[in-house]
């Protein structure tokens, strides 16, 4: 079950691509969007965790297909934009697209199965995702947004810790070879 990173005959990384049961990616992505919307009803603590981003990262590093990651991240981001009345369509879409693409690309190069690696990966992608959003806000919408804050750091840590457990749960949805 665990991902094995080996060196092929040509010296290129021989990466094991994890496959999922049909509909898993779509279902989990939708559930992530729904849960994110539902959890917001129960208070500020729900904003600490970015479920759609976690799903984007997970399927990106698991599928290791940049095209899939790109479209999945973009779709989830556009859904987030569409479901939020304030954001113009494309704000989260652009960030999700880039994160999905990068996660798929990185997943094929480094070990993303270890919990600590996942923790660091989620933490970095969280801030990268946030940076793209802030940049988009500042450049396109001319809205002053802060790149960093203590609350943002706290959110990233919580999301990273939660993501490690979520990734372990999502590993069970993988189709065995």
């Amino acid at each position, binding site marked *: 079950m665990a991902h094995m990173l080996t060196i092929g005959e040509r010296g290129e990384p021989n990466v094991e691509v994890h496959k999922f049961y049909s509909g898993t990616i779509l279902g989990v992505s939708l559930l992530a*969007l*729904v849960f994110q919307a539902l959890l917001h009803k129960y208070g500020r603590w729900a904003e600490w965790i970015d479920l759609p981003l976690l799903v984007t990262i997970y399927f990106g590093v698991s599928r290791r297909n940049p095209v899939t990651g790109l479209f999945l991240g973009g779709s989830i981001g556009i*859904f987030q934009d569409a*479901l939020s009345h304030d954001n113009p*369509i*494309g704000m989260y879409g652009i960030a999700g*697209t880039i994160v999905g693409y990068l996660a798929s690309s990185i997943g094929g190069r480094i070990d993303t199965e270890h919990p600590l690696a996942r923790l660091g990966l989620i933490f970095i992608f969280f801030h990268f995702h946030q940076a793209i959003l802030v940049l988009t806000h500042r450049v396109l919408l001319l809205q002053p947004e802060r790149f960093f804050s203590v609350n943002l750091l706290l959110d990233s840590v919580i999301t990273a810790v939660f993501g490690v457990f979520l990734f372990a749960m999502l590993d069970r949805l993988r189709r065995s070879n």
Partner: protein
Amino acid sequence: MMLLAIVVLAQLLLLAFQVKTDHSVPLIRYWAAAIVTPLERGGTWMTSGFGNIWKGYVGLRNARAENENMRSEMQRLQLRNQELESQNAEAQRLSSLLSFHDTHTEVQMLAAEVIGSSSDSSSHTLFINRGEKDRVRMNQPVITPEGVIGKIVEVFPHSAQVQLINDPSSGVGALFATTRTHGVVSGIAGSGPHMDYVSNEEKVTPGEMIVTSGEDKIFPKDLLIGTVESANQSSTFQVITVKPAARLDRLEDVIVLLSQHDLEAKKSDDISGAEAKQKQAEADAAAAAAAASQESAANATAQNGGAGGPGGSAPTQQSTKSPAAKPAVKPAAAPNR
């Protein structure tokens, strides 16, 4: 990489279009809402349902725990209430004894607590927590503010045995409060106290009060013993059942009269005071009414020509204190047996 650039660029253009024209993209929002909203509705329904079930479960558990707590609290309070009622009853009894003692300062008396009773069901005796050390002696009267209950028959250093007036071997010189007809109140095995040696000629009505006569040299005169419960004619003497004034089966605190002086009637005295006289007046009124009713019945019989028959005999006249009617104190109840 090229694909990424195209997709990002497309979204940037879409974003720029929205910002420039201040138009959103309603179709995308509509589709997104159409896809996600039913799931959200289902999720809300499930979470609220689960929340309700959880709340109900927790509430039920809390209610059960609360119910058990309240039940134990109620039992504790019931016990406490019983304890307080017992203390209240004891305080009333002691207050009654104290009041009685205060109204009869001329008589030396001693309050005592009932500590036990006889193990023999046929005898009616009890033990009190006062004895020879407390100047308790044989044949001293034992009373309560309600009435006479018995006399001391055994004295121990720190306790004494009291023979109740309903004991078969007991005997108390008694008389009716109104007619002053004498008799002896004694116990009968398996029954309540009776008043003996009252001739059939004496008119006795239920409710009539019976007091001590003082002839037995034990009980002071005019202490309330009880009332007539029933009176029936017999061969020589009437069979008169006495209802003791004191609750002989529920005695807890009693008074031992250390001296033989007669008790003077006081206003607050239950045993020989105004209340007794009032009860006696009520008994007299009842007796008068009964006599009037009997007389009218006799007149009616005479008018119907029934006079002189077996059932038409003249009613017995109420006798006064005749020497023949005066009973002797029952030998078994003699003070110095």
